[in-house]
């Protein structure tokens, strides 16, 4: 559905936001994982027609996005990482206005907006000004506006940051429902969001795609290579010196470490791989370990 070929972008200061990105994104939920500054938002903005890359091409359903921005915008839903609303304007007014900009007019405009207000559980707050919304309400308003035109391509940039567990769950459920019929690109640095929802995932770092695949397949590949041990805090440095430590977790005074190794290190037990382990091992393999500590 969505094909990116050779996308690169260098900012004037010399920072390379994207380096030769090639991706094929099928229908369904596609997770984009990466540490802060990995280039996720740059990539999202580029797909959303808001930023021109230095080179490369992006095609969606036969539309050349870089040549015909309008054609993509007609079928796009976009929820940026940070967004607001006009001050002193209610959610209802904002959504109707955005619906008009997206080409929805007449009686169906009212219906579409009401549908989404109910779906995102904002019906009771519809006459409240959006800038007075709580974090979760604002995020739900954000997804409501992105879904107005029933988009074939939905791009959501770090939508669950700062949400409480109930709000996060509600939000992910809405996304999962949409993801059945459309291409949804979800960028996040919360690994759990991706492992629960996405059929495909790409891990990004320093402007590059480091790994692409199905989350289940990725974790399967790690079977038999992941080990764990509970050690004293003082000995962590020692273990680090001998093994590839993926993560350390403080637990009741001691530290649980997870280690990647083809053979069983002495004193360790086998561990069940999770997507987080894949994520950390990928970053370490590409020398992006400094991002972890």
């Amino acid at each position: 559905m969505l094909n990116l070929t050779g996308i690169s972008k260098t900012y004037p200061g010399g920072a390379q936001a994207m380096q030769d990105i090639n991706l094929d994104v099928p229908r369904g939920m596609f997770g984009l994982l990466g540490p802060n500054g990995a280039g996720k938002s740059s990539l999202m903005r580029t797909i959303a027609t808001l930023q021109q890359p230095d080179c490369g091409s992006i095609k969606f359903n036969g539309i050349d996005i870089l040549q015909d921005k309008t054609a993509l915008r007609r079928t796009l839903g976009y929820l940026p990482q940070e967004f607001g609303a006009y001050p002193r304007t209610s959610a209802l007014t904002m959504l109707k206005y955005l619906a008009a900009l997206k080409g929805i007019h007449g009686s169906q405009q009212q219906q579409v907006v009401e549908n989404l207000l109910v779906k995102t559980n904002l019906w009771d707050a519809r006459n409240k000004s959006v800038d007075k919304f709580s974090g979760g309400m604002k995020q739900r308003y954000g997804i409501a506006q992105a879904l107005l035109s029933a988009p074939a391509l939905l791009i959501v940039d770090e939508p669950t940051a700062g949400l409480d567990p109930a709000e996060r769950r509600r939000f992910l459920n809405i996304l999962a429902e949409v993801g059945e019929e459309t291409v949804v690109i979800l960028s996040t640095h919360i690994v759990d969001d991706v492992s629960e929802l996405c059929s495909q995932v790409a891990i990004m770092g320093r402007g590059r795609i480091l790994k692409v695949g199905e989350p289940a397949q990725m974790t399967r590949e790690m079977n038999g290579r992941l080990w764990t041990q509970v050690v004293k805090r003082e000995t962590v440095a020692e273990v680090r010196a001998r093994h590839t430590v993926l993560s350390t977790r403080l637990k009741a005074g001691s530290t649980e470490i997870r280690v990647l190794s083809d053979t069983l290190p002495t004193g360790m037990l086998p561990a069940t791989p999770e997507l987080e382990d894949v994520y950390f091992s990928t970053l370490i393999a590409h020398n992006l370990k400094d991002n972890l500590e």
Partner: protein
Amino acid sequence: MRALLEVLQFEIRYQLRSPFFLGALLIFALIHFLAFTGVINIDVGHLVAINSAYALLQNELVLFNLGMLPIVAFGATAMTRDFECATAPLVYVTPISPKTFVLGRFLGALCFASLIGLAGLLGAMIGTFMPWLDQARIAPFSLLPYAYIFFVIILPGTLVMCAIFFSVAALTRSFALTFAAAIAFFIGEVLLNLYAKLGNGAWAALADPSARLTVAAETQYWTAAELNARLPLGLLTQNRLLWLTAALAAWLLALLRFRLDLAEQSPLRFKRRTQAQPTLQPAIQKLIPVLSFSPRASFAQFVSQLKMDLSCVFKSPPIYIILALVITMMISEFQTDVIRIGLETPLYPVTGQMLPILRIQMPPIILLIALYYSAELIHRERASGIGEIIDASPFPDWLMILSKTATMCLVVNALMLVAAGSLLALQTAAGYTNFEPGLYLQSAFIHNGIYFCMLCILAVVIQTISPNKWLGRLLMLGVYIAPLILVVQGFGHPLINFNLPDADYSDMNGFGHGAKPLYSLIAYWGAFCVLLLIAALLLYPRGNYSSGRASVPERLRDARTRIRAGVRGAASLAAIAFIGIGGWIFYNTNILNEYLSPYERLQRKADYERAYGRYDNAPAPSYDTIEMALDLFPAERRLESRGSAFWGNHKQAPISEFVVSVKPVLHVNQLAVENATLSPIPTTHS
């Protein structure tokens, strides 16, 4: 004490980085400079030295009203800033006493507000040294008048305004309410001036917060020599003391009442009643919306955007303040120019007398609108954080720029409607019944409205190109003031002066021959505005660009993708119209007629005096009888005359030679003097 110093230090660091402070500093110095170099003319009489205390005083009394804006901003934001930036919870829990906090913030605001006044004074001082000023009107430099102005007008005035609005802000914790109070204060001042003209001079002079009436009352019988030498200190001192006492009282009230707490509603704040909402929610329907992008749908998109932009203007407090200002100014001008209270015989308030009021009073207000709202509208989406969502929506590129321009033009015309309506009401109140709504409409919306819309379009285009609001505002101010300076310097040709001339109206002749050039210029600048709008359409920022200079090639690349057949066609038509009409105007002004710049006109007068000055006191015969026939052709703006006159020599000595001069606009068929020979002097003068 240490806490106080820390609060103060923070204020200083904060303001020194604020573009508003730096911009206000610059604008104030510039406006004063322009006032003293004759670009903005504040009349003090030609016998008074430009750098005398009195001239400084008169200028300062007018310009200080402009200064109210930054003073109110400094006084109010010192107390409301914590709520707007959401820093109140952080600042209010620090172990600082409320009194130290209030004192520190107040001193900071006062310090920076006075610096702006000082910058103005410095601008004035530099202005008086400019070489092109009439050196006969420059007194030897003395620091005394400047010190006098600073300590008698600027410092007490700033202190009073700052204290009053600081206190209002401290007690209401609302910038909008403080701003509204400032406008109420200003309107009160205008009403007091009216009241003074009704013969209540003494009381009003003492009470006038701007001290204009005070100075007028104190100096009205002074001679020019006194105006140059003396400093008004009697009544003015009393006035200052009165207001300083009032300000101190307001400030003490704030000091005593202010608490470092986060009580959301202050007692002065209106609580909006929450509407009872039906909680019944509709059932979700399975609905895939049909998107439409036909021309009709695009128009619906435009209407939706226009509604949003209009609500941006009409939901903001400044527009109502400006409306109140318009009405107040119309009342004030009507009383001064037409009813002429306390001065002379009142004029009959015919509509023709009302039109110049529109022409003279509205431009500064329109400039205010153009400066403020063009920035608010163009940068609105990005400022409210909705820019990316909007930019990724499928609307045509022209939509935003046209909607913002239409909003500005509608706001301007709404103000003109209010102004014309006010004048009409005043006419009615004065007993006038022959209403001429058509004439009002023609003057308000065509003769003036179009020029004001031109200004708005210019402001919109500048803001589109400018990366931020304040830079855009400064640029627009520069572009507005530059032609005023250029005209003085001799570059006033209508083809390069972005302005429309005023068409004089008389009840006998209507707009007469003034209308034709006006309409040609409307068409000429109209075509130019279309070109400006096309430039804005191409350069309107949509999406994310690199910061600084690196954004230029990116925006130009976007612009290239927007050049489509329609844009190219409209641009070509506008360019052809602009050049064609411009050529026609040039043919009329410079080929059919002779065009002289004001500078050349003066030069010609000087040359004339140099060439024929020697005949000034030479003996010449005087007319005994004149017989003349005049044929008037008003439609062709032409007259033909023929006739004869008898000259007699009533001097003691014979006259051997005298000069007969003919105006250069006259075409002479035949000119003969009996008993004398005419020897033509080849000349360009007359």
